[in-house]
């Protein structure tokens, strides 16, 4: 029953977008209730659908669109868990925003845009074909542009919005190139009759794509998947297209929460997961995914260490965690095949909960103290108990704190959601290392876990403990803001216990679509105890380091934080990425060199020299000269006539007489 109305999952928020945009001004709280109701509807339908299709059904609906393309809905395990997570988290964020945005005059626009943002993300999730996926994907990018630039009168916000759109656009173009290449190969396959489309299915549908995998040349497949991954790199802020994500903090904090937890950045991971059978068939691509993911996880964590803007720390944390998810897909994919999707998606969802929680907590703090700079905070624990407690829960989840009791024969482990999800990825990376001897991804993952733990507790200690470093009178946020925090905290704490059920459900995903994936042969060797404990050990170690430095203040770090320290300079300047992207590539190279020289050629050479001067002026000059031949003296005219006769003689002689 719910499944029949699956289209409403997207259409309700779209409707809310339209209504809120045009009518919001006249409604309560800028029309916030419309999107909330719509997204609640989406969540209910998603959940209902989940109950309907669990454990082994899928929903497919498809309509012909244009030129052999279609629009359709595919709800399989992978999609439905995402749908539930996105609609749920988004719902909470919307509710929270009623409080957070209470004083902003442009509320209708805000709620309309976030509603569209959610709709676009839901559209990405339930697409049954790559074109629709791309379209929704682009709309996600559009909404991020609109929301990051929500306070468009701030130059930095306008710049950040543009950067976000352009940098992800680089990825999008790669993605589009992948689609072009895919379409080409699919058409070749179909026209060579090696493979025929099922009746009623379309060329860019996922099921057709997966069915055609064996017929596509491996080289092409690698290229296609790499291009797809290029899109994911842009959207999910992987190195080297990560720069937009920290800048995106210019938007309202709730927007950041949406982007980082529910709606935008996970789309990249979802893309790789969605097309995972193709990646599995192209192991070289998986390797690239693993390396980029692992490197990003570490790379972003290093920058998270030194940032002072509370949201920026969280932003780098997101980049880093997305790196984990990519690492999970890549490394675990090579090690255990299809199971990697479950591992990675599980982390995605648990990350969504605790990262949303973190951002909302940060929002609560910012709302209270009116600054983003953690150096100006401190000692807020007493004033904002709910925020502080939920935040420490989120931090524990992020750091992956827990006790892997299961290895001691006890049927369950104790731990936060992050503990379950992140450890699985790290173990996956280790499994890959063990099989191939390539331990580099694993090393990346472990080091990143250590740094993660350090920076998140640094953040917590600096914010909530110690003496207040500013004179603002902070107070706890209203209920409409704290309730979502509590709900999210519950999920951050306990979501991890669904692990085995989740794996079992999501792992079946591609089987349900009839895709046979080359699963790696051989029994997975149970990892040694030290490997199992390693993530927890580094997590706790990180906590202790932070505790030592930022709580007990035994070590004065200020002497490292100087502009003379090259490492610090490198980190605080974010590896000079903004300078490189905006100044050098954007302004200097593209605008000043290429575009301006084009302008020069156009105006001065093509137009100025050839059209104006050579053709235009010459005619004028010639006219001025030639009119002087007309002296006005009639004898000269006669002379010219006589000369003309001479000319005629010459011409006729030349003519051959």
């Amino acid at each position, binding site marked *: 029953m719910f499944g029949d109305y699956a289209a409403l999952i997207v259409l309700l928020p779209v409707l809310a977008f339209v209504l809120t945009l045009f009518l919001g001004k006249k409604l309560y709280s800028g029309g916030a209730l419309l999107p909330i109701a719509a997204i609640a509807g989406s969540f209910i339908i998603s959940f209902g659908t989940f109950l309907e299709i669990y454990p082994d059904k899928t929903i497919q609906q498809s309509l012909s669109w244009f030129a052999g393309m279609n629009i359709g809905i595919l709800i399989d395990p992978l999609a439905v868990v995402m749908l539930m997570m996105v609609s749920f988290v988004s719902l909470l964020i919307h509710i929270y925003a009623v409080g957070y945005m209470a004083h902003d005059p442009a509320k209708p626009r805000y709620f309309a845009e976030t509603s569209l943002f959610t709709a676009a993300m839901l559209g990405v999730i339930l697409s049954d074909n790559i074109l629709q996926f791309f379209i929704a994907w682009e709309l996600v990018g559009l909404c991020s542009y609109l929301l990051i630039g929500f306070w468009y009168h701030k130059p930095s916000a306008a710049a950040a919005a543009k950067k976000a759109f352009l940098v992800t656009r680089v990825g999008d173009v790669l993605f589009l190139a992948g689609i072009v290449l895919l379409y080409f190969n699919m058409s070749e396959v179909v026209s060579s009759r090696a493979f025929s489309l099922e009746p009623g299915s379309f060329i860019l549908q996922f099921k057709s794509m997966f069915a055609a995998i064996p017929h596509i040349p491996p080289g092409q497949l690698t290229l296609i998947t790499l291009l797809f991954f290029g899109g994911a790199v842009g959207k999910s802020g992987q190195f080297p297209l990560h720069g937009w994500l920290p800048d995106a903090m210019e938007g309202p904090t709730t927007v950041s929460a949406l982007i980082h937890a529910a709606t935008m950045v996970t789309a990249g991971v979802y893309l790789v997961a969605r097309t995972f059978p193709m990646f599995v068939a192209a192991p070289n691509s998986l390797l690239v995914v693993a390396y980029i993911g692992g490197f990003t996880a570490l790379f972003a964590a290093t920058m998270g260490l030194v940032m002072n803007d509370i949201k920026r720390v969280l932003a780098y944390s997101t980049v880093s965690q997305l790196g984990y998810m990519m690492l999970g897909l890549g490394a675990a994919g090579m090690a255990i095949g299809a199971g990697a999707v479950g591992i990675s998606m599980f982390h995605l969802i648990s990350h969504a909960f605790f990262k949303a929680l973190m951002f909302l907590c940060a929002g609560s703090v910012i709302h209270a103290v009116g600054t983003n700079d953690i150096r100006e905070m401190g000692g807020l624990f007493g004033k904002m108990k709910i925020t502080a407690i939920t935040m420490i829960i989120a931090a524990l989840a992020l750091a992956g704190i827990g006790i892997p009791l299961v290895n001691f024969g006890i049927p369950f482990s104790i731990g936060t959601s992050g503990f379950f999800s992140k450890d699985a990825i790290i173990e996956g990376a280790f499994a890959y290392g063990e099989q191939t001897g390539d331990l580099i991804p694993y090393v990346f993952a472990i080091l990143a876990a250590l740094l993660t733990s350090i920076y998140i507790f640094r953040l917590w200690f600096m914010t909530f403990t110690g003496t207040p470093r500013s004179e603002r009178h902070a107070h706890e946020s209203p209920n409409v803001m704290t309730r979502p925090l509590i709900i999210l905290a519950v999920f951050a704490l306990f979501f991890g216990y669904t692990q085995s059920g989740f794996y079992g459900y999501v792992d079946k995903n591609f089987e349900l679509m009839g895709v046979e994936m080359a699963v790696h042969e051989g029994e997975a060797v149970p990892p040694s105890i030290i490997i199992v404990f390693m993530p927890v050990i580094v997590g706790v170690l990180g906590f202790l380091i932070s505790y030592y430095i930022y709580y007990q203040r035994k070590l004065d770090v200020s002497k490292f934080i100087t502009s003379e320290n090259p490492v610090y300079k490198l980190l605080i300047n974010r590896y000079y990425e903004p300078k490189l992207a905006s100044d050098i590539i954007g302004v200097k190279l593209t605008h000043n060199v290429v575009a301006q020289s084009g302008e020069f050629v156009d105006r001065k050479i093509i137009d100025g020299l050839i059209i104006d001067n050579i053709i235009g002026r010459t005619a004028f000059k010639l006219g001025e000269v030639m*009119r*002087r031949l*007309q*002296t*006005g*003296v*009639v*004898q000269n005219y*006669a002379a010219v006539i*006589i000369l003309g006769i001479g000319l005629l003689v010459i011409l006729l002689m030349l003519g051959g007489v």
Partner: protein
Amino acid sequence: MSLYTYLLIAAIMFTVGAYGIITQRSGIKILMCIELMLNSANLNLVAFSSFNNNSTGQVFALFSIAIAAAEAAIGFAILVALFRVRDTINLDNINILRW
């Protein structure tokens, strides 16, 4: 005298007339040069007529003589009118229309 003698004389008259038009400044002289050229053509016509045993040329010559007379009359009339307005018939100075 052979035909070529007449033709040669006509050609010389023609050339002298043409040279005169180019070099002379007085309007009267130029009119005379034009007459010279027309008459060279008449001479041709009459000569050809005689040598071709065919009277058409002489008829043509008569027409042209009559026309030349009218032409001279018009020419002088214009020159007189011009002299009244400009006090000169030196054609070098008659160049308000140019360029």
